[in-house]
């Protein structure tokens, strides 16, 4: 119970300090009265000589207190009294504070969503980007369709791989046209990134056969064109004169690749095998198997690249990086 003893002792010392000052003033005023001053004049002069009595009492008391804590409690008491005496002002203050806090919370939600939120993919630490390195330096860039297919089929480092190409396209949905970020993707794109439509279905192997007929859109695209309603089949969008069925909506916030703020994903219109090996038109991403390090993946890809270079006479150095 030391704290209780300390609290009581402090209170006693504080009271004594105040009493002592009162005694001092009385003693001084009596001395002045002895010199001939009236009682009122003597007390008045004693106080003048002493200085600001209230302030000095406060300073003496503060020695025994917790000034910050007590000042805080005093402020709180004053605030409560003021609020009680002016209910209209209190209501206005509460409304302004509420609005301020609400706005702050909203801004934080946006900051959290845009800046602080982790990558919107399952186990993002195992995702790697696969790109080509040019033989004349360290520059690296996109990958060709045949190279991507060969790396994917010959490497054992990845659970799955995907190629994609991004563009900005003009699109019409429900009579409204706009420019949207779009990505043409290979079959295992969503599986590699570990994302599933929250409404509708993912792409199936059959969607990649023949001409493109289907698309998946972002949650923001869906809300913008069809309202904040759950996914329902039967909606379409039109681009480059081709009408596509919207088969699914991806979770809110998913826009990979984010550099072009992708909102629409289509199956590739063309077979990756049939394009020129020298046409480096695609980007690629892979999901490492749990027991494979990025160094091991790099070694495998480098070995495959060397084989391809000999067999195809095309420069195919490759680099994997997270």
């Amino acid at each position, binding site marked *: 119970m030391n704290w209780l003893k300390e609290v009581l002792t402090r209170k006693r010392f504080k009271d*004594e*300090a105040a009493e*002592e000052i009162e*005694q*001092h003033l009385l003693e001084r005023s009596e001395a002045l009265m002895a010199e001939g001053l009236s009682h009122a004049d003597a007390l008045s002069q004693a106080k003048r000589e*002493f200085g600001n009595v209230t302030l000095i009492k406060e*300073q*003496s008391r*503060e*020695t025994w207190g917790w000034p910050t804590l007590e000042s805080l409690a005093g402020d709180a008491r004053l605030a409560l009294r003021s609020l009680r005496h002016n209910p209209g002002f209190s209501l206005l203050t509460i409304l302004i504070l509420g609005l301020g806090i609400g706005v702050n919370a909203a801004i934080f939600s946006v900051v959290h969503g845009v800046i602080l939120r982790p990558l919107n993919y399952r186990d993002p630490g195992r995702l790697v980007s696969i790109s080509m390195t040019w033989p004349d330096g360290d520059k690296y860039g996109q990958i060709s369709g045949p190279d991507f297919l060969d790396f994917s089929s010959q490497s054992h480092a990845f659970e799955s791989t995907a190629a994609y190409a991004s563009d900005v396209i003009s699109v019409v949905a429900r009579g409204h046209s706009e420019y949207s970020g779009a990505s043409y993707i290979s079959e295992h794109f969503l599986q590699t990134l570990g994302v599933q439509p929250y409404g509708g279905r993912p792409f199936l192997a059959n969607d990649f056969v023949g001409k493109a007929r289907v698309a998946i859109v972002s949650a923001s695209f869906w809300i913008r064109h069809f309202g904040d309603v759950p996914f329902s089949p039967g909606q379409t969008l039109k681009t480059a004169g081709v009408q596509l069925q919207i088969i699914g909506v991806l979770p809110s916030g998913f826009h990979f690749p984010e550099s072009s703020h992708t909102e629409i994903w289509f199956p590739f219109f063309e077979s990756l095998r049939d394009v020129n090996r020298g046409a480096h038109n695609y980007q690629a991403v892979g999901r490492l198997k749990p027991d494979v390090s990025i160094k091991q993946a790099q070694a495998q890809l480098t070995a495959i690249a060397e084989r391809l270079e000999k067999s195809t006479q095309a420069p195919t150095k490759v680099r994997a990086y997270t």
Partner: protein
Amino acid sequence: MHGYALVQHIKQQSNALLQVQEGSLYPTLQRLLKANLVKAQWQTSQTNRRVRTYQITAAGVKHLDREKSRLHRMLEGITLVLSPVES
């Protein structure tokens, strides 16, 4: 000695050269009390008044010696600075 008497004592002993600001005396006494450099007790004065008297403690004496020593050194320094330089 209680606060008011202390003010008078200092004034008289210094031939009124030193005049303690009464306003700063009491907060200072409270700090000394809290630091256990002085102890206080309530007594009745010669004029039959309830007063709080202060007495220096052993720790207070040691502290006073240190402070006196510092003051002497400072005065010595000031004296040397103000002395005429021998050419």
